[in-house]
Every structure is written in structure tokens, then in C-alpha cells.
């Protein structure tokens, strides 16, 4: 009797150990898989970014892209779609595209254009809300008899890299409540804020993160990493 119980117990113990071993092996496998995958993806991404900074599209591609954009603009402006006016439009677009084909796409970074456009469109409603808030803030300040302002100048360093994202950030700062961008020098933003509170709000860096998210910069790589690691954590939790 006792022997059979002992044998059963030993069997159970072995089975549990076996299961634990299998689970541990699976866990280690996924972990190595994921890390190697992450590293590979990260290397590829860094390579793409480094290459994108140096690589410029050929002049002809830029010319064609500029021409198409200008032609669409012309058609919307003119509103006459007969042959004569369209051919005028083609000639004018060719002239302008020849004069300034390297202006519109001066430093394009690598990245999915459609995704950037999508994210930019999703950024606009948030910006609109901020602008409306900003206007009510200004209206309150202008109409209140005592005018509770305490202006100060703050500076902060940005982690953004390309000029277009700097411009987006600077113009967003100018349009949001209580702050205007005065100067950018060496990634150092100089901001004029109406009081201490808005300056502190800006220092949290929410807007910078949003802009970085749009143009897939700086923290984008880190976010990707965090997402990968979270998968490993989930696996670990399931295993326990």
C-alpha cells in the first residue's frame, strides 16, 4: 500500500518535473527567438535611418513627384478641364518643377509615407482641441480685469532629428495655450510662456512624444523594443 502510494508520488513528481522542463525550454526558446529578432530588426532600422540621412532620392524622382503635386494643385485652382487650360497647366507645372524640384523634397527621411500621413491626420484633432483651449485661455486673460500673468522664458533640448518635425513641434507650441516659440538654436528651443503652470505642462514633453510618434523618430525605436519585451513578459507570466 505504502509502496504503491510512493510509486504514484514519484510518478507524479517526474511528470511535473518533465512538464516544468518542457515549459522552461519553450520559454527560453521564445526568449532567444524574440531577442534575436528584436536585435535584427533594430539593426535593420538603425541602418535604414542612417542610410536615409545620407541617401537622397534621385533628381528625376523628385522632379516627377513635384510635377504631379503641382499639376493636382493647378487643376484644383483652375477648375477648367478643357485641353487648352490643361496643357497650359502642364507647361506651368514643368517650369515650376524645373525651377524648384529640390525644394519640396529637400531632406526626406526614410519611412512609410502613408503611415506618416495617417498619423499626421490623427494628430490634427488633438491639435484643434488644444488651439480652441488656447484661444479661450487668451480670451480669459484679455478680458479679466486683473490679468493674472507671470511671463517667463524657458529653454529645453529636443530629441527630434529632422527639420520638418522641428517645424511641426515649434508651430504646435506656438498654437497651444500660453506658449510661443521664440528661437531654435542647436536643438535648443527657447519658449516664452505666460505663467509657471503652462511652462510646467510643456516640460512633461507630451507634445514632443506625439510629434516623434508621427515622424517615427527618436523614441520610436524604444517603443518598439518595449512592445517586444512585453511579449516575453507575457510568456513568463503564462509559464508561472
Amino acid at each position, binding site marked *: 500500500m505504502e509502496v504503491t502510494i510512493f510509486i504514484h508520488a514519484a510518478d507524479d513528481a517526474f511528470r511535473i518535473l518533465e512538464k516544468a522542463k518542457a515549459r522552461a525550454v519553450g520559454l527560453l526558446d521564445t526568449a532567444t527567438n524574440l531577442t534575436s529578432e528584436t536585435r535584427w530588426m533594430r539593426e535593420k532600422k538603425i541602418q535604414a535611418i542612417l542610410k536615409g540621412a545620407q541617401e537622397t532620392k534621385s533628381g528625376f524622382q523628385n522632379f516627377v513627384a*513635384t510635377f504631379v503635386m*503641382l499639376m493636382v*494643385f*493647378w487643376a484644383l*485652382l*483652375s477648375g477648367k478641364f478643357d485641353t487648352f*487650360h490643361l496643357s*497650359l497647366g502642364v507647361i*506651368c*507645372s514643368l*517650369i*515650376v*518643377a524645373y*525651377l*524648384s524640384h529640390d*525644394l*519640396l523634397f*529637400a531632406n526626406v527621411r526614410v519611412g512609410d509615407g502613408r503611415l506618416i500621413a495617417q498619423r499626421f491626420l490623427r494628430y490634427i484633432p488633438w491639435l484643434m482641441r488644444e488651439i480652441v483651449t488656447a484661444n479661450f485661455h487668451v480670451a480669459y486673460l484679455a478680458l479679466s480685469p486683473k490679468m493674472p500673468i507671470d511671463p517667463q522664458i524657458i529653454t529645453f533640448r529636443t530629441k527630434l532629428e529632422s*527639420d*520638418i518635425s*522641428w*517645424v511641426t513641434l*515649434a*508651430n504646435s507650441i506656438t498654437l497651444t495655450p500660453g506658449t510661443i*516659440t521664440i*528661437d*531654435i*538654436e542647436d536643438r535648443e528651443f527657447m519658449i516664452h510662456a505666460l505663467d509657471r503652470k503652462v511652462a510646467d505642462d510643456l516640460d512633461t514633453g507630451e507634445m514632443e512624444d506625439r510629434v516623434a510618434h508621427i515622424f517615427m523618430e527618436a523614441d520610436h525605436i524604444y517603443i518598439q523594443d518595449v512592445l517586444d519585451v512585453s511579449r516575453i513578459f507575457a510568456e513568463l507570466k503564462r509559464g508561472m
Partner: protein
Amino acid sequence: MIVSSDDIIIKTIARIFVPFIQLYALYVIMHGHYSPGGGFQGGVILGASMALLLITHGYDEVKRRLPEGVVMLLGSVGVLIYAGIGLTCLLLGGNYLDYSQLSVILHVDPAHARSLGILGVELGVGFTVMAVMYSIFFDISTGGILPEDQKQEEKLESEG
């Protein structure tokens, strides 16, 4: 002497705007007989777009795009187009700038010939106005002394 601005915001915004402004100016020139525009207004906008580029990107960038000689040529050609169309009408037996006479050369009916003639005249006026605006702005901003003149003078001084 205008050098390139070190302000990244104005530079980028100007870079994005300038092609569209130029196309808009050409639209105003070409649609002179439908809308309030015309050669003069379009030329002014074209000149203003070049001025914006000169302010933000500096002298060298603009000169690479549109050298002084080409601007002078455009101005003269504009006057030539204007006077040429007028004189052609005169030679064909009408008044100066009597566009309907052009129908003989262009083989179209007088109404269409008139609109084509107006288009040509506006083109000439636009080019001339643009060239003159641009060179006035250019001369004021450089003080009449161009960098190549300075280089030549320095060379002469070092030689003699």
C-alpha cells in the same frame, strides 16, 4: 548682402511654400481674362516668391536657380513679346494691340484670337514685371555690389 537664414522654421516653411506660390503666380498670369489677375499681379507674386527664397535661402541658392543674366533676358523678352504682338496687329492693318487682326495668322476666329493675344501680352507683362521686381529687390539687398565683383576687385588688388 543677404546670407542664408539660420532659422530652421522659416527656411522649411519657405521651402514648402515657394513652389506653390510660383504655380499660383503663373495661374494668375494665365487666367488674366477670367479673374481679376493679369500680368502685373502675377508678375508681382512671382517676384515676391523669389524674394522669399532670397530672404530665407540666401544669395547663392537663388543665383543657382535664376542667374542675373536670365532675369535680364526674361525682362527684355517680355517687352519684346508685348511690343511684337502690338506691332504685328499694326502690320496686319489694325490698331496697336488690336488682337482680332491676329486671326489671319493664327487661323482661328477673331474672338478666340483675341483671347490668345491677351494671353500672350499678359505673359510678356508678367515676365517683365517679375524680372524688374526681382532685380530691384536684388540690387537693394546687395547694395549693388555682387560677390563676383568683390572677388574680381580682390583679385585685381592682389595682382596690382
